[in-house]
């Protein structure tokens, strides 16, 4: 099993959710995050005074899938979240040792 963490543009939340549902990914955890990468933030003006925002709000998806699913999910995320501009985000993949469904006590891939 792998954990896939995708940090994407905030405005891609709905699009990506629908794309993951479309390939039958059932479970996911979504959090609002702030961060920075190659994208340099932007300027806002408050009563004429410049305010630099160097961390940018993004949305982070966390999902755990069977090893065989990883490439399909990554393709779906890239297709849904890509605009081609700097700031599209990143995907991190990491191994997951164990998964337990609390209600039934099932373990491993069954529990995902």
């Amino acid at each position, binding site marked *: 099993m792998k954990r896939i963490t995708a940090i994407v543009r905030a405005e891609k939340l709905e699009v990506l959710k629908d794309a993951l549902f479309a390939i039958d990914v059932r479970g996911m955890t979504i959090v609002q995050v702030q961060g920075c990468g190659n994208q340099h933030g932007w300027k*806002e*003006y*408050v*009563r*004429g*005074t*410049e*305010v*630099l925002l160097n961390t940018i709000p993004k949305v982070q998806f966390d999902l755990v899938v069977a090893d065989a699913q990883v490439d399909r999910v990554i393709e779906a995320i890239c297709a849904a979240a890509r605009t081609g501009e700097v700031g599209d985000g990143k995907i991190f993949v990491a191994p997951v040792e164990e998964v337990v469904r609390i209600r039934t006590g099932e373990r491993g891939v069954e529990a995902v």
Partner: protein
Amino acid sequence: MFDSGSVAFMLVCTMLVFLMTPGLAFFYGGLARRKNVVNTMLMCFGIIGIVGVLWIVAGWSLAYGGDGSYSFLGGFDQLLALPTVAQLQAELANPPADAAYPSVVDIAFQMAFAMITSAIVTGSLAGRVRFSFMALFMGIWVLVVYAPLAHMVWGGEGSLIGDVIGALDFAGGDVVHISSGVTGLILCVIAGGRRGYGVMSYRPHNVPFVALGAGLLWFGWFGFNGGSAFAADGIAALAVLNTVTASAAGLLSWMAVECLLTGKPTLVGASTGLVAGLVAITPGAGFVEPWAALVMGAIVSPVCYFAISHLKSRFGYDDALDAFGCHGIGGILGGVLTGIFCVPELSWTEHGGLLYTGDVALLIDQVVGIVVTLAIVIVLDLVIAAVVRAILGGKVRVDESDEALGLDVSEHGESAYPAFSGLD
């Protein structure tokens, strides 16, 4: 003769002016950082308590008591508003010919003015000043500065600024906006800037709060300017019309400046611009024609914008929420422009505006009135601040670590948004 229309109108205006202070709490609260919003709003709400009590105890008497024999303040015969009921009974039994409503209405109406004026000052203190400093300073200030100043401008015959100098102030350019704005400037210099001022940038934590507060201020301002006609009459209607006209022009001209200089209009800018327009028209609301209100509103926003975006960083004072930039600057500009645009027939003195009469007399009176207001306020502020600083053992600001933590928790033990972690 009492006129029930005017009694009803003035009571409603009193309530409208009262609403401005909670409205200002939202205006300032939205502009503050999320860790300081409780402190910022509580300064306004605290003022309502402090000024409400002190106004009855002595403020009303110092401002409007006495027989008019002092130029600088009212008198001491109305302390605790003791004669109120006896006066009311006397007035009802034998209504005075020149009054449209019983004098008890004025006690409440003017109390609401004292509240909003004191609350405006707190905008410059946000984010680093001890609540006790604010409370002590403003408590003394409302009795020692505001009440005498109200007498000097509106005390009728013999009063220093309104009569001896002959400056016009329809609803509170000198008394409310210049006095509070300049006091804000002095206190922010005394307190020093917020930690990291000029290094890091601050931005409003809740822009819709700012717009909500601006809306409440706006609505209340109709009572503020309209009620300053002291009767439900045509002058009140003119003041209300000029109020909405100037604020609309101020809102638009602020957005226009933003579009020119930064490319995009903002909601904080529109809210600030409409308030600047309200401030500018306040001294002239019942004296000028609607087209002049348009001009006053249109001019004030660029001037305040420049003061806030350039003067502040140029001179390095941290007027956190722009009490001086908005109210001090806007009030001075409005007072000067009243000397130009005042319709002679509407003037309270024998002088009319420069534009109509070609005579600079009123303009000079306006400028002298503003300069005298500034001098009185600055001197008294410095004295009061020194006294309060001594009482508090020199501690005007919170500790550096408390400032970093935020004044909501360090001064009040209360968080505005505890649901952030979902653990409450």
